């Protein structure tokens, strides 16, 4: 599938028109990983955000006593690494490919920020969508299957 069609199926880019999607595609880079390959490590500098095109990513967190655990799996259409884009902080988790043939699309922070500042309509939509994605992840984390 063409990159532009893939991006249209990611809710991070919901609300962008074709020309704006083209601009996002122009700063996106395809990366392919096999099972177990670490894409970034917790505590490292965050200079890109990523979109899952195919396969799954495992998000691993190392807590204060040194225990590492899988926190969530992110599949097609999900974004990861966006927190560092927002707050310029270090990576809050490590991320690795779950299966062979995992395809992700990276967007460098400095190019993304420059695009949002150059075209503030894109900037508004993207920041709104990132906030909504973070909200979705919080609701996922806090969901109680018992309904209580």
């Amino acid at each position, binding site marked *: 599938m063409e990159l532009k069609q893939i991006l249209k199926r990611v*809710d991070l880019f919901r609300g962008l028109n074709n020309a704006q999607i083209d601009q996002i595609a122009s700063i996106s880079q395809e990366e392919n990983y096999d099972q177990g390959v670490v894409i970034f490590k917790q505590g490292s500098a965050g200079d890109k955000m990523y979109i899952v095109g195919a396969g*799954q990513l495992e998000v691993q967190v190392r807590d204060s006593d040194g225990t590492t655990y899988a926190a969530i*799996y992110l599949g097609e259409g999900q974004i990861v690494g966006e927190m560092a884009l927002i707050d310029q902080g270090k990576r809050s988790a490590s991320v690795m490919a779950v*299966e062979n043939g995992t395809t992700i699309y990276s967007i460098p922070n400095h190019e993304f920020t420059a695009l949002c500042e150059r075209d503030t309509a894109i900037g508004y939509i993207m920041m709104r969508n990132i906030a909504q994605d973070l909200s*979705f992840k919080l*609701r*996922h984390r806090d969901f109680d*299957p018992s309904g209580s």
Partner: protein
Amino acid sequence: MSMIYKVSYVVQGGEYPGGIKNQEEKPEVGTLVQIGLMMFEVMEVHDMMPPRDDFQFLHATVKPASHRKN
């Protein structure tokens, strides 16, 4: 563009991490889904928030597929 379902999968019991993925078909009770390297069976599906444009946002509670009784 057809509807895209962004699904939050939560594993019953909480011992295994859940997942989030986009799907072209709405999950239903009994649907099998891969989370990580394991297969799970959907037990419940709820709307998480109102749909926006072509996206619908869902919660699904799942259990390991190997625990199926049938």
